[in-house]
């Protein structure tokens, strides 16, 4: 069996044409992750350019309002480019540069990963092409403009459902046709090995910082860490350094769309089953013949029919819990956090906020919850306004 397994999940289910490319990537990564110069350069970029470490903010008003566990917000929304995506992109872009690549390609859903990739490409003088589902280019028009402003080419993908999964497929096709100068800067903990591991390692900075800061502030570990899960990169980054601490509940919030009892959902672990797609074995929303289902969520970043293989494994062994959150619940949480704390979260992150709003009152006041605010919500304002019946456009 191939490398890169998380229990039965993971693997390298990709065309032969790409095999040497992923092997080369793995070798380069294994070399550079131990290279002090690489790590120094990356840390400098993360700190000086992206603004790390991100804040672990005690949400006093929200805590008082919900009347239960203390709530901390891990503010990945304060990173440069407005989301956690930059953590992974700076790592991969620097790695690609060391490998002699001159061109980055990426998929994007909400546009946050595309913007981060376009940003890194501008900074490191690399060419950049971003694939984005045509539906998402409409939902997230502002991010399309940002990517172009940063010098990237944005290619709208009209195949399939015109969303994130189709953008991934098209980026994979593009990589198959141009490998020697091109690195596929995958945005989540998904795809073939070594991507789920590389992306997790670059995102693990989130839980490392939560852990250090929490020990400083509270002298102990949190009782629960909550994050939204599409492919699952901010969630695995938030969970990683707590996996060994059984006292810390790890909760991933999936996008249930209009509900897990409808077809208009993207809650993979709640409604999917094990399959093989986009280079990995994991849970996927699919029909009885293995055809990938056309999923739906108000959140373009969570609108994906699969989940990263390490999440599938954490689910299988019962180490992490995965809960569905509907569009309605996420929109309520989006508005709640704005009014309560003056923080507008990405609609993706609002899924995590929503579950915390249910959980916190059920926990006692001496308990601590951390919610990862994976991104900022400016990009979502027009769409949420429309959801509420206000016809505003960017």
């Amino acid at each position, binding site marked *: 069996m*191939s490398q890169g397994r998380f229990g039965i999940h993971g693997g390298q289910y*990709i*065309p032969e044409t790409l095999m*040497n490319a992923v092997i080369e990537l793995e070798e380069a990564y294994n070399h550079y992750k131990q290279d002090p110069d690489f790590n120094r350069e990356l840390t400098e970029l993360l700190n000086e350019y992206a603004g790390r470490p991100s804040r672990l903010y005690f949400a006093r008003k929200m805590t008082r309002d919900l009347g239960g566990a203390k709530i901390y917000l891990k503010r990945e929304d304060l990173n440069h480019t407005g989301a956690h995506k930059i953590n992974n992109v700076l790592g991969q872009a620097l790695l690609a540069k060391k490998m002699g690549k001159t061109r980055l390609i990426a998929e994007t859903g909400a546009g946050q990963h595309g913007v981060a990739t376009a940003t890194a490409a501008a900074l490191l003088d690399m060419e950049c092409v971003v694939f984005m589902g045509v539906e998402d280019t409409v939902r997230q028009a502002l991010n399309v403009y940002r990517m172009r402003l940063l010098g990237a080419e944005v290619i709208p993908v009209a195949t399939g459902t015109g969303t994130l999964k189709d953008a991934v497929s098209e980026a994979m*096709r593009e990589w198959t046709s141009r490998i020697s100068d091109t690195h596929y800067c995958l945005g989540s903990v998904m795809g073939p090995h070594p991507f789920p591991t590389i992306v997790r390692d670059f995102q693990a900075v989130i839980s490392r910082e939560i852990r250090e800061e929490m020990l400083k502030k509270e002298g102990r570990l949190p009782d629960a860490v909550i994050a939204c899960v599409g492919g699952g990169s901010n969630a695995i980054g938030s969970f990683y350094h707590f996996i060994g601490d059984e006292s810390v509940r790890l909760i991933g919030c999936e996008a249930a769309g209009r509900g897990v009892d409808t077809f208009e959902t993207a809650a993979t672990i709640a409604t999917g089953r094990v399959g*093989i797609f986009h280079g990995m074995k994991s849970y996927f929303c699919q029909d009885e*013949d293995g055809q990938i289902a056309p999923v739906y969520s108000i959140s373009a970043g969570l609108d994906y029919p699969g989940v990263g293989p390490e999440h599938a494994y954490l689910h299988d062994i019962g180490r992490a819990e995965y809960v569905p959150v509907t569009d309605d619940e996420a929109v309520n949480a989006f508005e709640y956090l704005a009014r309560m704390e003056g923080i507008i979260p990405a609609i993706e992150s609002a899924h995590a906020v929503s579950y915390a709003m249910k959980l916190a009152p059920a926990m006692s006041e001496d308990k601590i919850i951390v919610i990862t605010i994976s991104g900022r919500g400016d990009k979502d304002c027009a769409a949420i306004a429309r959801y509420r019946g206000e016809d505003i456009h960017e």
Partner: protein
Amino acid sequence: MSKIKEAFRKGKAFIPFITCGDPDLETTAALVRAAVANGADLIELGIPFSDPTAEGPVIQAANIRALSGGIKTDQIFEFVRDMRRDITVPMVFMTYANVVFSYGAAGFISTCRELGIDGLILPDLPFEEKGEFLPLCREQGVDLISMIAPTSEDRIGMIAREAEGFIYLVSSLGVTGVRSRITTDLSAIVQVIRENTSVPVAVGFGISTPDQAKKMAAVADGVIVGSAIIKLMEQYGKESAEPVGAYIKSMKEAVSQAAAHPDLPAGPDV
């Protein structure tokens, strides 16, 4: 051993690819008969997949047409069972790993054997992952076809030594689809393959004209054509059997002009 080697015993093989159920199975049946009548040596039957990541736009569209017609894996099995009453030419399924996995690999592969399907091509199942299906394929005598690409380099020997049925040599980088030129040095790759196995080699991806087919047949044992046929199906729909048949005839004639695999003994003329 499956019947696949027979396909390469009568000189250079021509292998058409047809997406099942595009636009319906009656048309697929007519196309298979037309392919056999016009000299196809082996037929690659595509089981549609919703998100075929190794395909270019032409075959992607064929998958969508077939799936929007409501085609199911079990219907394709019944279709093959029906065809096998009189069609004896070797046939392989080409689909994606999830279609097999989701059906249940053991059930899928034993059904292949039962239907007289000789091999299985899964473009998202590289050498490292074939252990998932290979023991079941061996048990049932269904060849799991190995693919080799222009980027395989140091992997060619490893893949070739374990290859069964035939080797699917990908002509160039990228996904399936018609190409005006193929610039990969295929003869160098074929030479390394020959040093490691006597399993025949068929070249696919990007081949559409008789001239290209003849050139490819000169370096390998067979030629696979998909997108060019699917384009005709896209154009002629339910009436595509005749133009596809004529096209296959011209392609078979072109590949026949190249000399046969030296290591394969000539079989009986069929």
